[in-house]
């Protein structure tokens, strides 16, 4: 195998020998020089065309800025937006926590960081330099990027380059933690939402559209929550780093399970606003959860005692039969699932809880699981107080990430089962799995989309 680095990594930029670098990388031979000139011409013209296409007034970017709320949450009622913000905040809090906990605290030499920055700023300068001044709209020329703006951008860019260059010269050897750089970028981003102004569709008091669209700052309902969430993120990062420094390694499992739980909590409690009824929780859920956690703890304690050991197998089978029977009885859904989980506990407890320490741990995990499950099911099975006429409460970007999350969670185990089936030695199972795999993957995705849509439609009529 050959050394990948020689081909992959870009040639080092050395300021000392610019002419030598140019000669080696751009003009090493006649054909290379011709290629360089041609490709620079191609890159410049393609960039000019693309930039002109995107900043042309025909593109109507106000359609995006005006409807951004629609893109994010679709028709979710504005009065309940606090729930959306709690969702975002929860996820970003978790992000900060796991970032702080898992961060390697890598250090970057300021010189290297500055080199990266210089590359970024010079790309920006390149785009500013080649951006077209005016574009052609239906036969007339419209100015989209005036030369004054260009000069201001260039001045800012050159100023930035000088600053970074000075920084690079002054502290060439000093190091900085990479996370701090990321937080610097993030705070610049959050700071910028207080400053920037975007073109927005506005109407006068007599309901006429203001033309041209005025540049307005972002609304407080956007800026304040993002700033608070950013604060929470820093806070979570600090907590995560603190826990890591204390050496609480069990936290990694807790963080992982929070990532699994968070979408479930969001779907069942936060986003739906369930009409659960406090009396239901007090008289039904909490007694059920307490009973089952006590039952489970008793099982964990007793199953390994010498008197019970010979009967372990019968208890497990009995529990299985009981849970199947209860599954078909008209009882609360919570009970049906809890009995199944108890059967799982009874069958694994003797192996896992073989010492006092592990029995204690398992009891804690069991009680927490039971409470969380009962509460999740209460939230999911209650009526939703938020009703969006004509569509689902999930829409826009919310739907995107929810489908992505649950899609990954469900398709991964299913894929493993299919893969195992395909490698099975039993011909019937192997052939069926192969058939399913080949049929599904040879037909385009959009066809399956229509297929399931029409199938659901047939069932509902």
């Amino acid at each position, binding site marked *: 195998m050959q050394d990948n680095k020689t081909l992959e990594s870009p040639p080092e930029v050395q300021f000392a020998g610019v002419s030598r670098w140019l000669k080696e990388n751009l003009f090493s031979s006649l054909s290379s020089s011709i290629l360089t000139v041609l490709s*620079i011409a191609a890159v410049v013209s393609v960039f000019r065309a693309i930039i002109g296409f995107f900043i042309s007034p025909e593109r109507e970017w106000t359609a995006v800025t005006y409807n951004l709320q629609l893109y994010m949450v679709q028709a979710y009622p504005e009065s309940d937006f606090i729930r959306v913000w709690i969702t975002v905040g929860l996820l970003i809090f978790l992000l900060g926590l796991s970032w702080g906990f898992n961060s390697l605290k890598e250090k970057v030499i300021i010189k290297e960081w500055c080199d990266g920055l210089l590359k970024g700023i010079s790309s920006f300068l390149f785009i500013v330099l080649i951006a077209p001044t005016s574009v052609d709209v239906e036969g007339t020329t419209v100015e989209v990027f005036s030369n004054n703006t260009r000069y201001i951008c260039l001045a800012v860019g050159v100023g930035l380059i000088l600053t970074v260059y000075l920084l690079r010269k002054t502290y060439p050897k000093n190091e900085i933690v990479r996370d701090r750089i990321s937080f610097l970028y993030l705070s610049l981003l959050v700071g910028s939402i207080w400053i920037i102004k975007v073109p927005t569709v506005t109407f006068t008091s007599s309901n006429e559209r203001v033309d041209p669209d005025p540049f307005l700052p972002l609304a407080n309902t956007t800026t304040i929550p993002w700033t608070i969430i950013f604060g929470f993120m820093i806070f979570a990062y600090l907590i995560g780093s603190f826990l890591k420094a204390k050496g609480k390694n069990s936290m990694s499992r807790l963080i992982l399970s929070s990532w699994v739980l968070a979408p479930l909590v969001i779907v069942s409690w936060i986003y739906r606003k369930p009409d659960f009824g406090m009396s239901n929780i007090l008289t039904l859920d909490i007694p059920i959860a307490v009973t089952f956690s006590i039952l489970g703890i008793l099982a964990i304690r007793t199953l390994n005692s010498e008197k019970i050991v010979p009967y372990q197998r019968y208890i497990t089978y009995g529990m299985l039969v009981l849970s199947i029977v209860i599954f078909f009885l008209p009882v609360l859904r919570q009970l049906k699932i809890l009995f199944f989980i108890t059967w799982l506990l009874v069958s694994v407890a003797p192996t896992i809880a073989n010492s006092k320490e592990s029995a204690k741990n398992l009891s804690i995990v069991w009680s927490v699981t039971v409470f969380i499950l009962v509460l999740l099911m209460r939230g999911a099975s209650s009526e939703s107080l938020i009703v969006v006429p004509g569509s689902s409460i999930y829409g826009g970007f919310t739907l995107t990430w929810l489908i992505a999350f649950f899609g990954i969670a469900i398709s991964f185990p299913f894929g493993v089962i299919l893969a195992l089936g395909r490698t099975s030695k039993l011909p019937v199972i192997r052939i069926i799995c192969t058939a399913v795999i080949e049929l599904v993957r*040879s037909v385009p995705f959009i066809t399956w989309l229509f297929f399931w849509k029409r199938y659901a439609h047939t069932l509902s009529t």
Partner: protein
Amino acid sequence: MKFNKAFWRDVRFLKWAGQIAFLLFIFNLISNFVSQAIENLNATNLPFSWRFLGTTPGVLISEGFVTYPESGLQALQVGMANMLRIAISGIFVATILGTVIGVARLSKNWVVQRSSSGLVETVRNIPLLVQIFFWQAVILSFPRPEEIDRGEMIFDISAKGIAFPWLDAQETSWLFGVWFILSFIAARRIFKWRVSVMESEGREAYPGIASFITFIAWNVGGWFGGYKAVGVIGFVASLLSDGFELLPRIGIQSLIIFIGFYYSYKYISKEIKRTRSAENRGILTDDDIFKIIMAGLLVLILAIGLFLPFGITISDFLVGDEPFFKADWGIPQFLDGVQNRLNWELTGEPFTLSYPEIIQAGQSKFSRYSPDVGKVMSVGYFATWMGVIIYTSVFISEVVRSGIMAVAKGQSEAGLSLGLKRSTLLRLIVLPQALRIMLPPMGNQYLNLAKNTSLGIAVAFPEIVAVGQTIYNQEGQTVAVFLIWMAFYSTVSLVLSSIINYYNRKMKMVER
């Protein structure tokens, strides 16, 4: 079978019982699924049937070889043809473009390397659907044809699409087409002959130039009448067609069944023979038994199916009124078609060049390109084609890059030290080895391209999914249309992957 313990604890019994139970479970699942759907369809007064394939759908398809299809089947065929047009041309162009980008990413030139990396990273991180919409927006941003007076034109872009000159096929085009394909074979023969001369006599024999001259001379000669030699095929086809009509129908059925039985017998005896080796000791595994049973079963089903009024609705549209399976499979009609197209009595130039024109669209004030002269690439076609090509070619470029990088550096160094030129080195040493690594992932990319053409529905390009949707919205036969979609796409995938597998076997290193 002898059981030496209780049979329900015997692993052989458990294995087969489990499989049969699984089979029954799957069968039950599918039949529930299907019967539920069919029941509901019946309740909506639209029972499952294939009849829509024969009736006129009365829809307009915006482009294709027929715009007012006479039957549902023809409408779907237009969709299939449109899909194949994009898929086949897309595969060729995406391969070339992908190779160029892949090589550019390995270039020593900084600008070339950086810009191609940027292109790859941008394109592959944007969903294909968004890219197709982008290309549609690009072409719609051109002025409409009536807005600017263009006069005489050769090549033109407007909001209605891209128009360019095109070769119009004449009567003799089929003859010339076959002649053209033969020219490739002739040129290849000459190339091999010159190479063998070069190898045996050790002198420069110019294989490339010789084969190129053959190619040109063959086609120039063909254009001015040489193509008539192909008429021999048409003559043979007419003889065969006459011969077929003399054969009784029962004879053809028996022939097909005989061939089926022969091959199944050969397969089974081969399987049994294979186990009679030292390591297998004549023991048939579950797998072998299953294969043998399946081989016998399939040929039995074939034999019974050929003599039964099997699926009357299917045969209805195949043959019209006859309730029996069409036994000659349309072979005489096909041979007649060959005879008519490859007739040596036809004369004239095979192709004529025509230029695009702008005409008035009906009675409206709008205008459009004339569909009869020149060639027009419509907005939907352009957007789908462009999106699919650019998207697939960046993935192909990654395949090419990884293939070239996986060839050990020592190989090219050895070639250079032998004194090979860079181009010869690439052609004779690096590429053959790289191709071997590239082929399987390349096949995957081709399959993806073929499947991704279905996104053309988003920009109203009438490929098979869009046409099928139009038809089932009109006739209500969703299940039938879905079955046709699945059959069509599975066939395309199978054909593509068998072509790739064939080349893969051919290119594989000979291992001892």
